[in-house]
């Protein structure tokens, strides 16, 4: 463990030093980025490698296959218990004597604020921009399947969490890997848990931090004009520091309240635009279905639409990654499986509702150019994406689509992106911290070390152009999924026993609603 600790600290130091040096000596930028890319390249290439002869990344296949297996294994739990999940969130089954504990609603909202973000706004635009409207169909399919993955991991997260004497809790994949494997008499649980924790820390510092800081800066700079990223970084780091180290809960509370409001406003604006173009709804869905199976001329045809849809859903709702299992473990319930039911709403809200809204607005406002003669989509000059009205892609495509109906919306969207980025950072600082304390143990100083490192990475993320580092961080998040899904295959029978027991007690009336 000591050897491992040294290696790990050296890796952190290397990560810290590389971009910092790049900032101090701009001439070295390319060399350092290149050195880092060379060092991490094989890992990144491995995670995002396509199946031979296709552009389909195997990691996306890994997540979709897992989601399908869990859907079949639990006999479409996401459909059978959807209504029950909503009842649980409403508090119908909550014992009034437990009032004051973390409610199902709170656990769901906290987990959602970690996943709803850039993936829903920029990611969908990329998917529809490349894969065409048909990508939306496959995105919805993947979102619906992903609900079963979330159900499995979050049930286990609560079942195997650690409850300490002082009343605090720690849970997540690292705990169900080590405790669950021990319980079943399987070897290797601890190794998986350590691997998962390492990837989780890297993912938290990268995708959950640097990438968010970087994108938030891009949004602010897009409105105010360009200025050095380290300024945004320092401000963000200061706020994050005040929240996670200083315990300044008021800022976190304001964000946690504003983010759901922004999410609702985003969906409401999308609905208004869709209703304003009500006559085109039928046409838009026609495009989505036709595109899903024919491609309608997009690059890669039907397979292209499928890849983009699946990929975006997997990247957006994190089903199978294991992060949500950490967030959901805090809920206090006598039945771990109830948290699994609640968590299956997460990919539904994130992907099936919010991502679909983004896609529909882009399609319905006709941002994608159709060839009037053939009725198929025209490709851009590079031939790698559909031509758009102003040549937009990514977040600017979503912004243009909403802006075509409300000219003030791009400003609101920019604020939303910044707030989403901030709330994602707060969530991931916690996920990373839990992985960190799993490896190094709980304790004020140990936790402080991670929190300070996290804040330093906010500045680096906002300041530097760190393509290779961000690639590496994204790869780390998906590496979490490799380890997590592997463990879930071994532990899913535990969830099935819980499900059978709960379902029979629900049917017999032993578990019933409380009168409120």
């Amino acid at each position, binding site marked *: 463990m000591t050897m491992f600790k040294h290696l790990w600290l050296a890796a952190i130091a290397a990560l810290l030093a590389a971009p910092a040096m790049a900032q101090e000596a701009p001439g070295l930028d390319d060399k350092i980025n290149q050195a880092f890319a060379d060092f991490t390249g094989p890992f990144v290439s491995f995670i995002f490698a396509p199946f031979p002869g296709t552009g389909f990344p195997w990691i996306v296949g890994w997540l979709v296959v897992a989601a399908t297996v869990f859907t079949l294994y639990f006999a479409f739990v996401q459909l059978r218990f959807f209504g029950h999940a909503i009842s649980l969130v409403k508090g119908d089954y909550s014992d009034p004597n437990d009032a*004051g504990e973390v409610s199902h609603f709170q656990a769901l909202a906290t987990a959602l604020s970690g996943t709803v973000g850039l993936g829903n706004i920029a990611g969908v635009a990329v998917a529809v921009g490349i894969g065409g409207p048909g990508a939306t169909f496959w995105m919805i399919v993947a979102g619906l399947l992903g609900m079963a993955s979330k159900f499995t991991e979050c049930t286990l997260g609560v079942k195997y969490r650690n409850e300490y004497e002082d009343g605090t809790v720690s849970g997540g994949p690292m705990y169900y890997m080590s405790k669950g494997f021990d319980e079943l008499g399987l070897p290797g649980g601890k190794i998986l848990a350590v691997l998962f924790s390492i990837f989780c820390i890297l993912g938290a510092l990268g995708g959950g931090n640097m990438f968010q800081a970087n994108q938030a800066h891009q949004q602010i700079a897009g409105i105010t004009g360009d200025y050095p990223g380290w300024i945004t970084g320092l401000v963000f780091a200061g706020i994050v520091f005040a929240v996670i180290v200083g315990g300044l809960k008021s800022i976190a509370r304001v964000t*946690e309240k504003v983010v759901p409001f922004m999410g609702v406003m985003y969906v409401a604006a999308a609905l208004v635009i869709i209703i304003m173009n009500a006559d085109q709804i039928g046409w838009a869905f026609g495009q989505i279905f036709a595109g899903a199976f024919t491609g309608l001329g997009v690059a890669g045809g039907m397979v292209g639409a499928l890849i983009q849809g699946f990929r975006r859903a997997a990247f957006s709702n994190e089903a199978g990654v294991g992060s949500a299992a950490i967030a959901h473990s805090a809920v206090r319930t006598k039945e771990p499986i109830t948290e699994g039911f609640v968590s299956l709403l997460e990919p539904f809200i994130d992907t099936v509702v919010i991502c679909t809204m983004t896609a529909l607005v882009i399609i319905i406002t006709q941002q994608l150019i159709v060839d009037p003669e053939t009725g198929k989509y025209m490709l851009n000059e590079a031939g790698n994406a559909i031509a758009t009205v102003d040549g937009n892609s990514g977040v600017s495509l979503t912004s243009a689509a909403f802006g075509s109906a409300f000219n003030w919306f791009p400003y609101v969207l920019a604020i939303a992106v910044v707030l989403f980025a901030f709330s994602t950072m707060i969530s991931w600082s916690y996920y990373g911290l839990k992985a960190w304390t799993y490896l190094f143990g709980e304790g004020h100083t140990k936790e402080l070390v991670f929190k300070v490192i996290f804040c330093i990475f906010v500045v680096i993320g906002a300041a530097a152009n760190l393509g290779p580092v961000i690639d590496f961080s994204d790869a780390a998040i998906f590496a979490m999924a490799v380890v997590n899904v592997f463990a879930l295959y071994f532990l899913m029978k535990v969830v099935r026993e819980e499900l059978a027991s709960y379902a029979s007690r629900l049917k017999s009336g032993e578990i019933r609603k409380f009168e409120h």
Partner: protein
Amino acid sequence: MTTKIVIGLDGTETGERAIAFAKDLASRIGTCELLVVYVIEWSPFTFQTPEENALRHKRREEEVELATNRIVTPAVEALTADGYTVHGIVRHGDVAETLNAITVENGGTQIIVGRASADGFKKRLFGSSTQNLVMHADVPVTVVN
């Protein structure tokens, strides 16, 4: 049959007046049981950070302990010393709803509360807990000025 009177406390001096009124009423009724209740304002539909969620159970225990030690236990002890049969309850929730629910659960026949202290904008928008209690309670409510 024993009459059960519920006294809702809010940690301010209006609670003292509610207790005084309940004592007077109880001595007139004769066979009477008192239930001292303190509700910690809490909603299951607020938004929290992951860290707040992890610490929630601990905070809840601390809140219940504080309310019990500072408000409910002193009131119960004082009333017991005066010869009344008294129980105390501390629970989280919406003040009006929870006070009513506890009363119904325990077979209370009426609720006595002190007039709510002013609470600015929120009170104007949503009404005070006392107003909500008076409007929606299942048993008679006495508001002591």
